[in-house]
């Protein structure tokens, strides 16, 4: 299942629409990496609102994605982790403590704006 990725100014917004298989997650990672490179995006929002389970593979892959995108010059924020999912993740013992997270798309964009401003780079 392809995850739709929208381009908004200097940002990419990937909105997950349904349960993702492992292959889908890896594909998302690769798609974002390619597009960040192509569009020279400064920020990426990955919206996981719809995901009802974030298991160890999902978390590992998202972590890897954030780091790869950072190497490509983009800040990434993961948004929309639901209360029940956050609770389950903590019980399972998987965390995203070095990756940026925000409540929802709106907050995610606010976060990216601050990051981009702070780093002194301004949009093209």
């Amino acid at each position, binding site marked *: 299942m392809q995850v739709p990725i929208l381009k908004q100014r200097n940002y990419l917004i990937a909105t997950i629409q349904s349960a993702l298989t492992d292959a889908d997650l890896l594909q998302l990672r690769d798609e974002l990496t390619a597009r960040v490179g192509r569009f020279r995006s400064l920020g990426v929002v990955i919206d996981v609102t719809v995901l009802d389970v974030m298991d160890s593979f999902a978390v590992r892959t998202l972590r890897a994605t954030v780091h790869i995108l950072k190497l490509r010059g983009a800040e990434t924020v993961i*948004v929309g*982790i*639901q*209360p*029940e*999912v*956050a*609770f389950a*993740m*903590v*019980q399972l013992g998987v*965390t*995203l*403590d070095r990756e940026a*997270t*925000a*409540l*929802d798309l709106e*907050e995610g964009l606010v*976060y990216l704006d601050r990051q981009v401003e702070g780093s002194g780079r301004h949009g093209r």
Partner: protein
Amino acid sequence: MAERRKGSTSRRPMGANVPAASLSEIVAHLRQNRTILREEWARRITEAQLLTAMTSEEIFAEATSIYDSYVEVLESGSVEALQAYARDLSERIIPRGVETHEVAGMVLLLRDVLARSLFEKYQGDFGLLNRVLDAYEPAANRVANTVAVGFVQERERIIRQQQEAIRELSTPVLQVRERLLILPIIGLIDPQRARQLTEQLLQAIRSNRAKVVVMDITGVPSIDSNVANYLVQTVDASRLMGANVIVTGLSPEIAQTLVVIGVDLSKMDTVGDLQGGIEKAERMLGYKVVPADETL
């Protein structure tokens, strides 16, 4: 007359498997005498002053259902239907204030009423009576047991549910400013309460779009691994939702205890007292609290 013929099974050689035939006799007898025996039972219930919380119509209605289920269990040997009925019955009468001894007493009375009836019928043939009782007793005891135990278990289940509800009511999450939640925790934290507190807070973070939570543990009397786990879990889970947690009410001694338990306090934002925590939260949110006379 027909029963006499069925009674000829008593002339089977010893050692043959009689109980099945006896049971079907018993069942037939109980079904035939349903009206009389049921009334007798209802009378004895009232006489023993059981089920006083129910009207006599209600008692009769339940007595009918139980009687029929009882006979069915004797016949089929399967307690599942009876278990289901026992649960259902308990769910209905527990809120009415019916006590365990009343339920146990009532079911035992039925056993007695039916046993007497069998005594009466087979008193002429002691050998046959014994075989009939051999068949009847284990089955009847299982029924009594099932109903009484079912009642007690249902009560326990309801009590657990109520405890859960009480726990939920006892900790409010306060929103004092936009994007800022305060969670004052009072009392002991056990794993069940910890789970409930965390879930409540996470839901509140979403509905209030909170960015900072000030969690005050001044009112938690003892700091142990349950509390430590709860704190760490809450901080981690809140962060996943984009909210920072400031823990307040930590004295140096408590901080020391937590470190000894193994909590990495460097990953946690802590401030000594609630007021300090709120101020820090406000700074984080970009609020500046200005004394009233300066705003003029």
